[in-house]
């Protein structure tokens, strides 16, 4: 989230799309309702009429996978009717920038496309630059190559009529949504977008998010109280686990994982440190060398020296895409001997789970760490297999729950909050930290005797006390970072061993270490700020700066320097995030996004400090699938692309096991319910929750039920090209077919929490989903696939 939960109360228009907060983030809805009590409008855009829809002022039905058409139409509406916040757009976004003359878009394909590799050469998407290397611009926004005009032309095709033919939305509701959203183009009005996996789980998921962000930029809603673009994270610490980079492509704090051609640290810095010729751009990522060196120092301590490139060689270099789907493909081809699952259940949660499960049969060993016996940990006795045929050695390690250990987790609003240990884990269960600690200690011992390239393990700095498990306090201190020698930084003297006060003090010469630069400031000499419980709210804006701590440097609203005009005056003086005090010449309110003077003064910096050019990107040349979001159909779709001749995202290669032949006529989609959570182990084993929702079900429309002769509660078989499952039919008027290009398209919705193991069992929805992912992130397209539904259980 650019903003945070409490902040939603400041919105004038709340748009929930690809999310269902009333159901899945129930307590967040407190702030939606607070805003509504003050007159805000809630808009729910969803394929199904959800719990959130039932509370909304406006509901618009949207066919799964057509967000870009919907949002593209809204962009068109804003540009056509000049309903943008012009001053914001000109000063803070790249609308005025001129794009290369060679940029082109033709029947669904942007310039630079190579159909064989499914890739774009992005050269023609670049800005035009002047002799000083600065992007050329036209502040009148009239130049035909300006981002503004290119955008206007691109989205002029998205007329309301055309959009609604694609999305299946009733045109009247569509126009009402357009008017409500557009009303926030006034400087003192603001809309927020609450989105979740309904947005991201598509072959064009990143572009879905981009289309939302573009609208928010055009309306001047980023950086504002009650505004922003807000991802509702589904797991308590999935924000933190991402910040801490348990992912193939990043290191802690979103540093890039080195690639094979980063032959040394200098090459790595050269490749990954963004450059700008604009002295007014903060270009925050220019600090990459400081953060990376500090990370290497945290990893390899005294062994990491300037002479040995701070042990850069010790880091594995990637030479491909190792993301979840690719990883599972490699598993299916027998590419792994062993796997470690930490509190995860891939044969319920992954795409095309039958394929993942049979891939696991190839493993020599599997370690699963969990609170419960999960489907994945007993894959060797799943229905339909004989354990005798599976040669995997399996370890199932009992883990401590959240109240049986201590440490921090980061919520969706980036607040890192501390949890305390209340009791010991049951029986022989141990914390995850204990388990990792034991592994590495034993491996250090083994590798000190012999082994291939033992140095990264033997030299690894691992100093977390002599207790039974690592001292988490010491780990938290290391994540923040410390000075590794006596040093003077920014005129201040620091002693070796002292905590680094904030990332502004991190250095590239080895004098600082930091396990995660983004969390530098969370644990300073003042103490562990993640433990704070101060409730002061001096501005009345609900920032709660003394409650816990949030990244970066306790800033509660990101890009908050865009919430003021060029003189530092809040666009909305009644709900200021920050404001410039001319007398003290200081910012007041939230922690400003860089403390520079307002934009009208010398020595200022542009507000979008994480972007090399410093401006919010309406046109983004870095994406795999185009600089402007364009509507494509999901990989499986019952209709042809009504916008262009390009059916699916051209930057995604078509995988096997996709069927568009008509054999599977219905649009399938998955979702969660309040009473269950993710792959289910944490809820399907609790009697209270099992009593509330005991069974797997599929929601279908009354019309489809009639057509198939189904009554509420009947057993049905749902099938796709990937497999089939049984479930109870839930016949409901909440699900309605879509009218798309003159044809009625039925949808089938189902929760994805169930599996064959545990207290409550049921068909796994991900048996049906396809292993195909977003062009940029490879997040699977869970939210739109084709299926069929038949009365009765599985006929074998």
């Amino acid at each position: 989230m650019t903003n945070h939960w409490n902040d939603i109360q400041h919105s004038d228009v709340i748009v929930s799309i690809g999310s269902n907060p009333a159901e899945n983030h129930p307590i967040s809805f407190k702030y939606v309702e607070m805003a509504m009590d003050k007159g805000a409008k809630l808009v729910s855009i969803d394929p199904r009429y959800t719990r959130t829809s039932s509370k909304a002022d406006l509901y618009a039905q949207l066919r799964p996978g057509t967000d870009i058409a919907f949002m593209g139409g809204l962009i068109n509406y804003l540009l056509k009717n000049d309903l943008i916040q012009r001053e914001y757009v000109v000063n803070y976004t790249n609308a005025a920038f001129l794009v290369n003359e060679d940029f082109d878009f033709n029947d669904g394909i942007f310039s630079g496309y190579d159909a064989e590799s499914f890739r774009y050469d992005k050269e023609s998407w670049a800005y035009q630059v002047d002799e000083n290397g600065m992007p050329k611009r036209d502040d009148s926004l009239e130049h035909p190559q300006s981002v503004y005009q290119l955008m206007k032309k691109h989205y002029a095709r998205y007329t309301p009529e055309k959009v609604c033919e694609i999305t299946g939305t009733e045109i009247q509701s569509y126009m009402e949504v357009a008017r409500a959203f557009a009303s926030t183009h006034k400087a003192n009005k603001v809309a927020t977008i609450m989105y979740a996996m309904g947005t991201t789980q598509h072959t064009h998921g990143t572009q879905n998010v981009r289309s939302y962000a573009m609208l928010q930029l055009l309306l001047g809603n980023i950086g504002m109280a009650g505004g922003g673009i807000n991802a509702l994270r589904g797991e308590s610490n999935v924000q933190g686990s991402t910040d801490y980079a348990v992912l193939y492509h990043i290191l802690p704090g979103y540093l890039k994982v080195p690639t094979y051609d980063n032959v040394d640290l200098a090459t790595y810095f050269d490749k990954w440190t963004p450059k700008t010729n604009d002295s007014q751009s903060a270009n925050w990522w220019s600090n990459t060398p400081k953060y990376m060196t500090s990370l290497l120092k945290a990893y390899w301590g005294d062994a990491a020296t300037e002479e040995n490139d701070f042990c850069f060689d010790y880091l594995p270099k990637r030479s491909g895409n190792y993301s979840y789907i690719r990883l599972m493909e490699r598993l299916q081809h027998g590419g792994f001997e062993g796997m470690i699952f930490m509190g995860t259940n891939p044969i319920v949660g992954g795409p095309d789970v039958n394929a993942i499960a049979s891939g696991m049969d190839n493993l020599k060993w599997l370690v699963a760490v969990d609170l419960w016996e999960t489907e994945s940990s007993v894959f060797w006795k799943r229905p339909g297999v004989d354990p005798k045929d599976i040669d995997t050695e399996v370890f199932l390690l009992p883990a401590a729950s959240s109240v049986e250990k201590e440490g921090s987790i980061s919520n969706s609003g980036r607040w890192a909050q501390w949890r305390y240990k209340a009791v010991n884990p049951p029986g022989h269960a141990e914390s995850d930290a204990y388990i990792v600690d034991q592994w590495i200690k034993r491996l250090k011992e083994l590798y000190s005797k012999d082994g291939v390239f033992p140095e990264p393990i033997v030299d690894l700095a691992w100093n977390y006390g002599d207790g039974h498990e690592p001292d988490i306090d010491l780990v938290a201190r290391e994540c923040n970072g410390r000075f590794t020698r006596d040093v003077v930084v920014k005129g201040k003297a620091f002693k070796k061993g002292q905590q680094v006060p904030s990332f502004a003090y991190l250095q590239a010469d080895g004098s600082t270490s930091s396990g995660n630069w983004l969390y530098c400031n969370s644990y300073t000499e003042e103490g562990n700020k993640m433990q704070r419980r101060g409730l002061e709210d001096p501005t009345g804006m609900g920032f709660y700066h003394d409650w816990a701590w949030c990244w970066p440097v306790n800033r509660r609203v990101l890009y908050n320097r865009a919430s003021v005009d060029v003189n530092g005056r809040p666009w909305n003086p009644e709900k200021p995030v920050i404001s410039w005090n001319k007398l003290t010449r200081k910012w007041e309110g939230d922690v400003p996004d860089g403390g520079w003077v307002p934009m009208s003064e010398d020595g200022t910096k542009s507000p979008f400090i994480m972007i090399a050019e410093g401006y919010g990107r309406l046109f983004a040349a870095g994406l795999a699938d185009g600089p402007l979001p364009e509507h494509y159909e999901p990989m499986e779709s019952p209709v042809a692309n009504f916008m262009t001749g390009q059916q699916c995202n051209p930057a995604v290669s078509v995988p096997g096991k996709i069927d568009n032949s008509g054999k599977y006529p219905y649009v399938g989609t998955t979702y969660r319910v309040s009473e269950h959570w993710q792959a289910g182990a944490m809820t399907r084993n609790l009697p209270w929750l099992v009593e509330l929702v005991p069974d797997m079900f599929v929601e279908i429309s009354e019309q489809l039920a009639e057509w198939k002769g189904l009554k509420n509660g009947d057993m049905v078989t749902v099938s796709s090209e990937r497999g089939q499952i049984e479930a109870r039919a839930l016949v409901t008027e909440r699900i309605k077919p879509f009218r798309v290009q003159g044809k009625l398209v039925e949808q089938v919705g189902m929760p994805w929490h169930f599996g064959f193991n545990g207290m409550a069992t049921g068909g796994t929805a991900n048996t049906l989903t396809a292993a195909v992912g977003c062009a940029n992130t490879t997040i699977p397209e869970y939210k739109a696939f084709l299926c069929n539904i038949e009365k009765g259980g599985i006929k074998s």
Partner: protein
Amino acid sequence: MGISRRNFLKGSALTAGTVALTGKAAKASVDSPELRIKGLQTSTTVCPYCAVGCGMIVHTKNGKIVNIEGDTEHPINRGSLCSKGSALFQVANNERRLTHVQYRAPGSKRWEKKSWEWAMQRMAQLMKETRDRNFVKQEEIDGKTYTVNRNDGMAMIGAAALDNEECYLLGKFGRAMGVGYIEHQARI
């Protein structure tokens, strides 16, 4: 921004009228109805389900959790919890929880209980063998040789249920082991 004593929770304990400003577990008092929590130890936690991050108070007696409820002082949830958060008590007190290290031998139909010591030795041995057998020191790409120092024999998945500090340790461990295939729920 100074940090006053009031704003710093060093442990977790209830004092009269307010949650918890200093010290480890202490006697409970007025935050909850007096009788229900009399004589109990208390501490604070944050919900392990969704990422709203609701605060909770945990009441324990003789090393057992006897009650978990919403933290009325928490600025996000102000004491409320949803169906899942309200059920956390049953995570802590649940017969289905794993309490032993379980091991399944190749081809076997069942789990066997094992000691941590045995399992740890065995896992470390397997991980080492896998790493040593599958370590890619160098790779040929487009006719050039590059040093990649990668362990392609194993993959690691999961972490969204772990604390930040545990995620850090897990990542540090994985990278030291040379693992490139590190992924978790954020990708799906």
